């Protein structure tokens, strides 16, 4: 298992070395950004069982915060209170993005502490819509529909000594890959711990979870916060990669895309959003490359999605896992663990 993971990582890290087509790299970068966002959504949807249909809000907040911090801004927070900020280094902007997105997640988790299911969906959808309207109408701060332009690219180090600049695609590809791997590790640590078990307990049986002392609200807030911070990081990377941000980053379709990636890949599994993200992130480009008519492309996309959900309701990853278990069962069942003692 370890070896397979290492081989995959080596392959992913080698891609910019032999792939000279920059368009392919661009597609991989965008897919990677979406996979990070989908992984963060999976923490909420897959593990706590709460569907956030406003997840793009955290992504967009990350994008805007990081852009504004690195561009600097002048805006009236209240009438007569002018806040002015000088441009800050991009890495600091990204940190602010993660922090503020995480804080927003904390607030959403707190105010929706009693609502579950459909009501949680409504809270998150409303939140995303409010944020979109703010981005659209607070022209002084966000430039509204005129968009924030000329967002600087990430630079690490100093020009005199050693500088890593993330202007070009291979560098951005590595940035996305590293952040994605980090996010994956953080989520894995979380879900394979006491905190993750508490989230799963909330999803599976809330009354029973509270009866054994799980403070479900606390862990829902934790999940929302970590999830939002991660989506904010994805948004920040996006902003400094495409280098223009407008209120369209808050479009509902992006949330839907993330949900599709999580659900088809397998919610509540670590690899699910990665698999779903790769399939539904790359599929439109593959279909386009195959020179199929645009309208047919979307039909294929939709049909494939329906087929996956219909035949593999649990998602692709659990389906593959079950299939493998069934085929390896005889081998493992023949050798039960040696430590089993007679009952009582």
């Amino acid at each position, binding site marked *: 298992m370890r070896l397979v993971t290492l081989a995959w990582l080596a392959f992913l890290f080698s891609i910019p070395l032999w792939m000279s087509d920059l368009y392919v790299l661009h597609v991989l970068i965008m897919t990677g950004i979406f996979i990070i966002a989908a992984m963060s959504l999976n923490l909420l949807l897959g593990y706590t069982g709460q569907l956030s249909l406003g997840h793009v809000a955290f992504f967009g907040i990350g994008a805007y915060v990081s852009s504004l911090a690195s561009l600097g801004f002048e805006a009236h927070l209240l009438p007569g209170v002018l806040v002015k900020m000088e441009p800050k280094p991009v890495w600091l902007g990204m940190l602010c993005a993660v922090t503020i997105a995480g804080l927003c997640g904390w607030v959403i988790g707190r105010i929706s502490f009693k609502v579950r299911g459909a009501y949680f969906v409504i809270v998150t959808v409303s939140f995303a819509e409010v944020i979109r309207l703010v981005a659209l109408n607070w022209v002084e701060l966000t430039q509204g529909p005129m968009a924030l332009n000329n967002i600087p690219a990430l630079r690490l180090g100093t020009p005199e000594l050693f500088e890593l600049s993330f202007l070009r695609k291979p560098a951005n590809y590595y940035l996305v890959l590293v952040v994605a791997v980090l996010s994956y590790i953080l989520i894995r640590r979380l879900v394979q*711990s006491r905190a993750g078990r508490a989230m*799963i307990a909330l999803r599976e049986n809330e009354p029973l979870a509270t009866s*054994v002392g799980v403070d479900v609200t606390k862990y829902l807030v934790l999940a929302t916060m970590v999830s939002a911070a991660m989506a904010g990081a994805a948004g920040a990377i996006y902003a400094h990669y495409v280098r223009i941000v407008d209120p369209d980053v808050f479009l509902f379709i992006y949330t839907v895309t993330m949900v599709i990636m999580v659900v088809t890949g397998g919610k509540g599994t670590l690899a699910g959003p990665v698999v779903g993200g790769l399939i539904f992130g790359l599929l439109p480009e593959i279909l386009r490359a195959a020179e199929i008519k645009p309208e047919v492309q979307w039909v294929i996309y939709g049909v494939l999605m329906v087929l996956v959900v219909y035949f593999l309701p649990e998602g692709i990853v659990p389906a593959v896992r079950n299939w493998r278990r069934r085929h390896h069962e005889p081998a493992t069942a023949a050798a039960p663990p040696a430590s089993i003692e007679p009952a009582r």
Partner: protein
Amino acid sequence: MTAATELTVEGLSIRFGGLTAVESMSFEVKEGEVLSLIGPNGAGKTSAFNAITGYVAAAGGSIVYRGTSLIGLKPNEIATLGVVRTFQKTSVFTGQTVLDNVLIGLHLRSRQRPIAILLGLPSVAREERQLAEEARAILRFVGLDARAGEVASSLPYGELRLLEVAVALAAKPRLLLLDEPVSGMNPAETASFMKLLAQIRGLGITVFLVEHDMKMVMGVSDRIICLNYGRIIASGSPAEIQRNPEVVRAYLGERYARAQG
């Protein structure tokens, strides 16, 4: 026997809209005993359990556990004090393995903080191994160790009920409230559950039981409280309860009294 009082319920009333489920109920649970609550369906037994464990709000009265009032506390806070319950309807984490069910139950015994988890500190891994050990020990205790790796939904009914008890035990109760633990079990399963109950008692855990199986109730209880229409109509030792004419009329029935001779 002068055991200390563990739980004091005084004047407890529970109302659902205009319906009174429990009316000024008062009783005590003493440390180390097995106390049973019996009565016809709808008498308010489960409502009393729900009020004690924080799942419904009491309309009046007081519930005090070892000097702490439980009124207004959330179920998880009450569990933290050592008052843990099981549910009348079978309730486990269906999609998780038997071992994971117990690991979730061990929540209160583990100390990992979110920051330590995210940083992947070695203390977290150490504690995880320790928790797995404890979970296995609990499964051995209830006799489910051979099922550790199986998904809970694949267990037969009798074992599911044992798993519920294992999950509750994992939360380290000092007072364990069991809501009809043997309902739906066959006589053999009930008999072995009675043995398990004796072992639980041996751990020093006080047991408060709601049950309809009279053989079990009479066999394991130190004291019995009989409820009817939300009021306590009798309390005493199993022998006293069996002789009590009001209990016989309201619940046990003439036939039961005759069968007992």
